């Protein structure tokens, strides 16, 4: 029996996959995120058996997060969209090779991060390398030590906050940004991040430390008492 039929009763009423319209942004049939974590392996198993609705459910569930990831890495909408599309298509093409020793989402993030990095390298050849060791510790000296007051993030509306985060991450160097995005936005472990990027654990840690410190300084402009000027 099709997994999607078990999961979503309305699926019985659905037209064949080729006739499906994209889900309306205002009416997604996404399940709560806690369910997503619990039943992901069932969806993957069903998709591996050829249940296209199950795979589409995985796409619906993760498309916004994967687009955020590719956008955060490339900082270019066209590249981000291409990277996201290719990541989903490649994950479908190679689904049978997915060993299920990690979450499907983590595997998908790895594919998407590589697609995004490929495009970033094309646009900015020789501009960044994840392999180069970081020399010296001068950049670790904190500047801009100002009081942020209690809960500074609550001074901003959600859309305003989104704009601030987008602006500060945009200014971060790509090799720091990529590591930060995987570790602190997508919440991969240090080991998963190292594996996804093909770099060592110390290289992840050193870039993550610098990324966090740099972002703190950049956020200072918005969060300090008195706000951005």
């Amino acid at each position, binding site marked *: 029996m099709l997994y999607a039929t078990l999961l979503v009763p309305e699926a019985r009423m659905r037209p064949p*996959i080729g006739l499906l319209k994209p889900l309306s942004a205002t009416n997604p049939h996404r399940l709560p995120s806690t369910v997503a974590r619990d039943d992901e392996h069932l969806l993957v198993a069903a998709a591996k058996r050829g249940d296209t609705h199950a795979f589409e459910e995985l796409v619906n569930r993760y498309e916004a997060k994967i687009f955020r990831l590719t956008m955060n890495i490339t900082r270019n909408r066209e590249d981000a969209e291409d990277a996201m599309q290719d990541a989903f*298509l490649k994950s479908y093409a190679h689904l049978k090779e997915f060993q299920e020793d990690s979450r499907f989402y983590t595997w998908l993030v790895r594919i998407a991060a590589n697609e995004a990095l490929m495009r970033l390298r094309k646009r900015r050849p020789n501009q960044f390398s994840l392999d180069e060791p970081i020399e010296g510790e001068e950049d670790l000296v904190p500047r801009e030590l100002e009081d942020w007051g209690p809960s500074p993030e609550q001074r901003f509306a959600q859309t305003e*906050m989104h704009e601030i985060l987008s602006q500060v991450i945009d200014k971060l160097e790509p090799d720091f940004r990529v590591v930060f995005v995987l570790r602190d936005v997508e919440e991969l472990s240090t080991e998963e991040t190292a594996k996804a990027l093909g770099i060592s654990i110390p290289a992840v840690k050193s870039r993550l430390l610098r990324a*966090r410190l740099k972002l703190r300084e950049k956020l200072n402009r918005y969060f300090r008492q008195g706000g951005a000027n």
Partner: protein
Amino acid sequence: MNCKGVIREISDYIDGELELPVRQELERHLEHCVDCKIVVDQTRLTVDVFCDSKPVELPADVKFRLHDALHRRLQEKSN
């Protein structure tokens, strides 16, 4: 531990990955160093605000093209 040492360990401290003796040494430093306390607290908040940020809804045109590409691939496979 001096201020430089705190900054070097700040990531592992925030992630709760420091060995107990190092963590205790760092926290003893924070008790009397206002600047380091500011950096630690603000770096932790920096991680939190990004970590808590929700992905925005996929733009409708991007979503349409993704599902269109997916459907075409699924159809190719079934033919």
